[in-house]
């Protein structure tokens, strides 16, 4: 494949899920029992043959750093390239970046140093599988300036920042920002491909003209001046745009088809922990659930995603819940539609309930 460098925004759209990002960045939101959101974009890059990845961070990135380490679990602990953290970079007069463009400005030095011809920019708030090298082939074939990846699906009221229209060959003819209308649309998933030199030029341009927004100031008017193409992502796609979409994206894994599409090839990499395998005790009842290493289940669970090291006490009934790492659910508890963040303890006999569209959220480290 063409030589490509990757850039991941690990800290974008965090305002959508304040509960989960209070203590961490978007990229380090736990997902699916043992993963973090950043694993998907990062694994996609590695599986596309990309060996140099810059990770743009903002604040609260301790948990992200802890997760990524040297990048060895993604095979990115390299002498040449590998995983490179790009913490906020600012001069005396500047503050932390406020948008995508400013964030990218901070990555200029990284991109200038990169010898790779192409760059893939991706967010870390979505679950999907995509071979970016195919996007680059498409990009080269069409002689595009920027190729933007979209997923076509129906939304009630578009929560996607950008949607667009394309010609048959993928050429983008119109970009709409913050569309109020719902319906089946080509929703931009914030993954783009361009030549590294082109991206550097855009950044330089943006600095000179005082541009703020990638979408409003560059891409939207760019329909006329640049050669913009849309690449269609096929298959499963879910993004974390609210607490209920986070809930749905986890529950989607209980569907065999989704599970095999996302994990069937066993190539979603993540930090490895050495918890012992899950134990289901005598008297426990387990239905339609995902159970991670280190779990000990003595009660009843149904339609749940349990992260590592979760203990479910005797007589407890836990249904439609996402229980994160090292939670202890006491005896005879009754939980329904609960998302319990890491390290929380629910004491014996408690009842907690949310509903499908509004799950009850338990903060990290709570004692209830």
């Amino acid at each position, binding site marked *: 494949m063409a030589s490509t460098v990757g850039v991941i925004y690990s800290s974008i759209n965090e305002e959508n899920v304040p509960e989960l990002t209070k203590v961490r960045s978007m990229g380090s939101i736990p997902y*699916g*029992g*043992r*993963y973090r959101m950043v694993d998907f974009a990062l694994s996609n890059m590695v599986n596309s043959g990309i060996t140099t990845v810059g990770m743009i961070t903002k604040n609260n990135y301790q948990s992200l750093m802890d997760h990524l380490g040297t990048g*060895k679990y993604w095979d990115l602990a390299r002498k040449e390239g590998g995983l490179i953290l790009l913490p906020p970079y600012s001069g005396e007069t500047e503050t932390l970046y406020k948008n995508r463009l400013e964030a990218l400005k901070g990555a200029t030095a990284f991109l200038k140093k990169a010898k790779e011809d192409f760059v893939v920019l991706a967010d870390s708030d979505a679950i999907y599988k995509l071979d970016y090298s195919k996007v680059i082939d498409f990009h080269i074939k069409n002689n595009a300036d920027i190729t933007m990846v979209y997923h076509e699906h129906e939304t009630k009221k578009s929560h996607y920042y950008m949607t667009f229209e394309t010609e048959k060959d993928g050429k983008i003819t119109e970009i709409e920002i913050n569309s109020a209308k719902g319906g089946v649309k080509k929703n931009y998933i914030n993954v783009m491909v361009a030549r590294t030199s082109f991206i550097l030029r855009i950044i330089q341009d943006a600095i000179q003209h005082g541009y703020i927004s990638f979408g409003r100031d560059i891409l939207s008017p760019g329909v006329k001046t640049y050669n913009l193409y849309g690449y269609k992502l096929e298959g499963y796609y879910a993004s974390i745009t609210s607490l209920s979409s986070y809930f749905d994206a986890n529950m989607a*894994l*209980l569907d*065999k088809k989704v*599970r095999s599409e*996302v*994990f069937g090839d*066993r*190539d*979603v*990499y*993540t930090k*490895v*922990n*050495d*918890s*012992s*395998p*899950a*134990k*289901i*005790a*005598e008297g*426990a009842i*387990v*239905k*339609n*659930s*995902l*159970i*991670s*290493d*280190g779990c*000990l289940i*003595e009660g009843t669970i149904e339609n749940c*995603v*349990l*992260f590592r090291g979760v203990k479910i006490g005797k007589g407890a009934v836990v249904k439609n819940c996402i229980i994160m790492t090292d939670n202890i659910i006491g005896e005879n508890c009754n939980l329904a539609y609960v998302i319990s963040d890491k390290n929380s303890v629910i004491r014996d006999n408690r009842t907690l309930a949310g509903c499908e569209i509004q799950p009850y959220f338990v903060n990290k480290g709570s004692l209830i």
Partner: protein
Amino acid sequence: MLRKKECVAMLLAGGQGSRLYALTSNIAKPAVSFGAKYRIIDFPLSNCINSGIDTVGVLTQYQPLVLNEYVGNGQPWDLDRTFGGVHILSPYEAKTDTSWYKGTANAIYQNIRFMKMYDPEYVLILSGDHIYKMDYDKMLQAHKAANADCTIACMQVPFEEASRFGILNTNPDGTIYEFEEKPAKPKSNLASMGIYIFTASKLFKYLEEDDKDPNSEKDFGKNILPNMLNKGERMYSYRFEGYWKDVGTISSLWEANMDLLGVVPNFELSDREHEIHSRSPLAPPAFVEGEIVNSIVATGCEAEGRIVNSVIGTDCVIEKGAEVCDSVLMGNITVRAGAKINYAIIDEDVTIGEKAIVGAPITEAKKVTGKTNGITVLGRGINVKKNGKISAGEIVDKDV
């Protein structure tokens, strides 16, 4: 930088493990799967790193492919070091004398230069066929405190089993006055666990002498230890209390797996103070939908059948209507709908066809006499066809 290690561990991993039959046809015993996600060698390697020993030589000889691939650069055990770390030591060709490892002592002797590279004060000798958690550093401290030349870890075993082990006869102060290898009439029930700490200079001296002795069998238990005792070296016993199991036979391997089950198991693996590290697979959490009773299920499983008192390894698929009882499934095994598995150990990459019957319910199977005492054993990579039947106690290593 410090070009010296206080203690170097040498792990004897070359054994064929012939009493595990089909399970070791193509792999060395230390590479055999255990406890759903581990391999036997994870235990000594984890014990080393948890005891602060970061230099380990792994001596391989028999079918080392899977073992070499598994140990790799040692990263899963934090044994990837710039100085030290884990090293695979195979027999090699030398200018004057080329040979396979001829015995435990000869294997260590052939790697004397490896040990000397680290200029150690002490050498820890381990074997790769036991399941246990042990802090070797405590044993090392005891060795140093006693100013011993050799310390042998031991534990009490039932008298009726004592003749299977090397037995230590000790004085009240812990010194050893006699060493009997598998005695018919044991005088004590203090069994050697095959874990030795030597003061390095003494070990090198006795290994070199032993190599020149044409009558020696080049074995620690038969030659080195008795020789040291005869010459009046300071030999100490070190009492270990806790779980320790030799998994050299089919029934002991089955038992050790079963010892993991239960809320308060005989052998606890979820102890974060002494974590057992392994090369963890890249699989999503287990999907469970079905009747599961008192069992362990590893990541990547799709468990939709009935599973009772069993250990289910990584990436196993138990289809709806299938039944697995009192069994050990090692990894990447598919059990099709309607199949029944009872009292069996099934090696990796096996497929059990629809409605096939493997083994017999435990109470019946235990009446079967034979090499495995009624446990049915299926070797790596085999297929059992639809409606196939394998009787209790059979050992199968090709498709049926």
